[in-house]
């Protein structure tokens, strides 16, 4: 894992001091709210329905157990004993006091963490595949590029007042777990003609009011040219992105308006100049950062390599193994998903006790390392196969062994109207009711992979466009209403879901989801997953069943 040196530490420490000064000026009246607002957003501080909300970055989703304990402590000391893991590898605290925010940033800085650029019209926290470094088929660890981007984008003087927010994600596997095509810039690390890693750069994806799957703008960018290409892309956006209309200000609108070819040409022209302007990272610096991501020392014993492992005669354990563990690069190891989606629970929420528990388990079973996923779950990336049963037993005691990763109750939900000042409708209660409806684990496993994603407004923080079943909350004459979309995907086969028909009430939407699932079970071919079935038959059969009843 990356470790701060004295420079990195000085940067976050200085940031804390700077923000302390800004908060003091705000409280004294020297700074107006209008002028303070963009500054507090640059430090992840929002004003939400009930209080300030602080969004803390977990760059590319990687955490040490020590950092997780700090996150737990912050929840206890400054908040109400819990935090919310978001869809962008961040954690949010909901009950923050402005006057305490600088102290929280100081606590974070002490464990090499920050809230820098987790909001505002800047390059946001860079995200990556949560299986980075352990995924079997990846070209190289995408966190190397992500850490380079983190440093380059931190306090970038030219790009701190962009037309709108800017999100970058990196993946290096043919299986895309980082939804790169739904980002302002998505980077897929691929092999060039000679077999060396290079970057496919997708630009102009996004969800929100106008969803787009990003087109490929640059194929096989040489790795050494990453920063000059990013500078060129951001400069074209900063100069020509729209600033007159907040809904048209994202780069996706510029890419769409110019057309991907013309946009690519403009970036290419700019890049031919930036690449000569000493913007690229010195090779020795790339090597320095790369070294931090060398694989840890794996130690396996015969038991880890054996076909059989302890506990497999327990069907509950087997069910968990089938959904919540994945193949690891190193023989004898598994990747474990800890579901933060207990039946009827709040997706992504974790209490202080749970965070501390996961930190302890990471120390015992996963070389002290934890990952955070954009699907609002946690990962223990390095678990020896012979210890899976022991880990599962401990997770069960902590209520963290729900065997539902990737299943119908593994729902993504944004905070919605329960917390968010921009919301039109609540998201969390819908997730809870659907989860309760499908509580039966056997039923979930027989339905198979199904991703439900819920947003409380068109901003789409709950990724509803990319849900196999997407749910969007709207306000219809003061009442919460929910539209259903079908057929979205945030994976390598990215697609935008299409609206099924008229919306449903809060109760009705739960029934509707069940009808959709039952329809799928009736029409699927052997072994056919939900998304494949929807793509084969279209929305028609689902519409018929849904709206015939009414």
């Amino acid at each position, binding site marked *: 894992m990356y470790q701060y040196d004295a*420079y990195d530490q*000085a*940067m976050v420490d200085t940031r804390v001091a*700077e923000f302390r*000064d800004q908060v003091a000026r705000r409280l004294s009246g020297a700074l107006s709210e209008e*002028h303070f607002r963009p500054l507090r957003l640059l430090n992840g501080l929002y004003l939400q329905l009930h209080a300030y909300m602080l969004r803390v970055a977990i760059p590319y989703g990687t955490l040490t157990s020590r950092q997780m304990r700090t996150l737990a402590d912050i929840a206890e000391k400054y908040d109400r004993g819990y935090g919310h893991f978001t869809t962008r590898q961040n954690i949010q605290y909901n009950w923050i006091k402005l006057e305490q925010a600088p102290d929280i940033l100081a606590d974070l800085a002490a464990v090499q963490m920050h809230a820098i650029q987790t909001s505002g019209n800047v390059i946001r926290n860079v995200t990556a595949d949560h299986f980075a470094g352990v995924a079997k088929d990846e070209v190289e660890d995408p966190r190397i590029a992500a850490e380079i981007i983190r440093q380059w984008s931190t306090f970038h003087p*030219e790009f701190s007042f962009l037309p709108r927010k800017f999100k970058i994600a990196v993946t290096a596997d043919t299986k895309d777990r980082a939804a790169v095509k739904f980002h302002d810039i998505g980077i897929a690390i691929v092999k060039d003609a000679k077999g060396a890693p290079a970057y496919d750069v997708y630009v102009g994806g996004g969800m929100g009011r106008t969803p787009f799957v990003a087109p490929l703008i640059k194929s096989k960018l040489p790795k050494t040219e990453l920063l000059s290409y990013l500078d060129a892309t951001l400069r074209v956006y*900063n100069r020509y992105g729209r*600033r007159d209309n907040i809904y048209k200000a994202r780069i996706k609108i510029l890419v769409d308006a110019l057309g991907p070819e013309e946009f690519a040409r403009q970036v290419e022209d700019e890049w031919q100049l930036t690449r000569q302007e*000493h913007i690229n990272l010195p090779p020795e610096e790339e090597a320095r950062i790369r070294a931090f991501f060398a694989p840890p020392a794996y130690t396996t014993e015969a038991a880890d390599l054996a076909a059989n492992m302890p506990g497999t005669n327990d069907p509950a354990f087997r069910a968990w193994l089938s959904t919540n563990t994945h193949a690891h690069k190193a023989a004898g190891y598994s990747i474990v998903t800890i579901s933060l989606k207990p039946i009827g629970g709040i997706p992504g929420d974790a209490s202080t006790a749970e965070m501390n528990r996961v930190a302890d388990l990471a120390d015992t079973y996963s070389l002290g390392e934890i990952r955070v996923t954009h699907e609002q779950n946690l990962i223990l990336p390095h678990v020896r196969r012979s210890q899976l049963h022991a880990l599962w037993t401990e997770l069960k005691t902590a209520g963290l062994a729900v065997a539902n990763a990737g299943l119908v109750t593994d729902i993504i939900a944004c905070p919605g109207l329960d917390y968010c000042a921009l919301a039109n409708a609540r998201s969390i209660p819908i997730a809870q009711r659907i989860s309760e409806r499908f509580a039966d684990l056997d039923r979930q496993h027989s339905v198979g992979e199904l991703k439900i994603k819920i947003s409380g407004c068109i901003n789409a923080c709950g990724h509803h466009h990319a849900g196999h079943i997407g749910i969007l909350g709207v306000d219809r004459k003061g009442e919460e209403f929910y539209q259903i979309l079908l057929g979205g995907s945030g994976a390598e086969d990215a697609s935008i879901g299409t609206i099924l028909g008229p919306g449903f009430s809060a109760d009705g939407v739960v029934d509707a989801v069940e009808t959709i699932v039952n329809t799928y079970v009736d029409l699927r071919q052997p072994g056919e997953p939900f998304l494949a079935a929807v793509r084969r038959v279209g929305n028609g059969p689902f519409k018929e069943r849904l709206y015939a009843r009414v």
Partner: protein
Amino acid sequence: MPVFDASGLVDDHWIVLGDADPLPAGAPVLLTWERIARDGEAAFAGRDPRGVAISSDFDVAKLLPLLPRIGLVVVKPANFKDGRVFSVGRLLRQRYGFNGDLRIQGEFIPDQVPFLVRCGYSSFEAAPGFDLDAALRLLKVFAFNYQTGLADKNIFALRHNQPAAGRA
């Protein structure tokens, strides 16, 4: 409105001319880009320094042939969130090698001054009520920076004991 640079308030000796005002002799004058575009060589009559005022959406490449004869570029943002001024600064300094005075005029806030300096701005003309003390204090806050290609203390270079490349 008062003008300051990184060391504090400075005397501003530039005379702002409207597009119809006659050119005075023996004084540095600030003209709009529109006037320079309209008058061509006549706008540069005499040997006095010329300044040019542009808006943040101006295509700075147009200034390139004139830069050797220009002593001041004044950039006006549409509002304090108008981040185009930063690109304008970097292009003028880093790409086109402008080494006169680069000034922002109008709406910006003290907390942006360090970014403006890093993008090449050398003087500042703020609206009334601007917190000059804060701006000068903030300029001293960050000792290092990550971005390469600028003339400030670059961490990537410092880590490997190299001089920072680039200019600003």
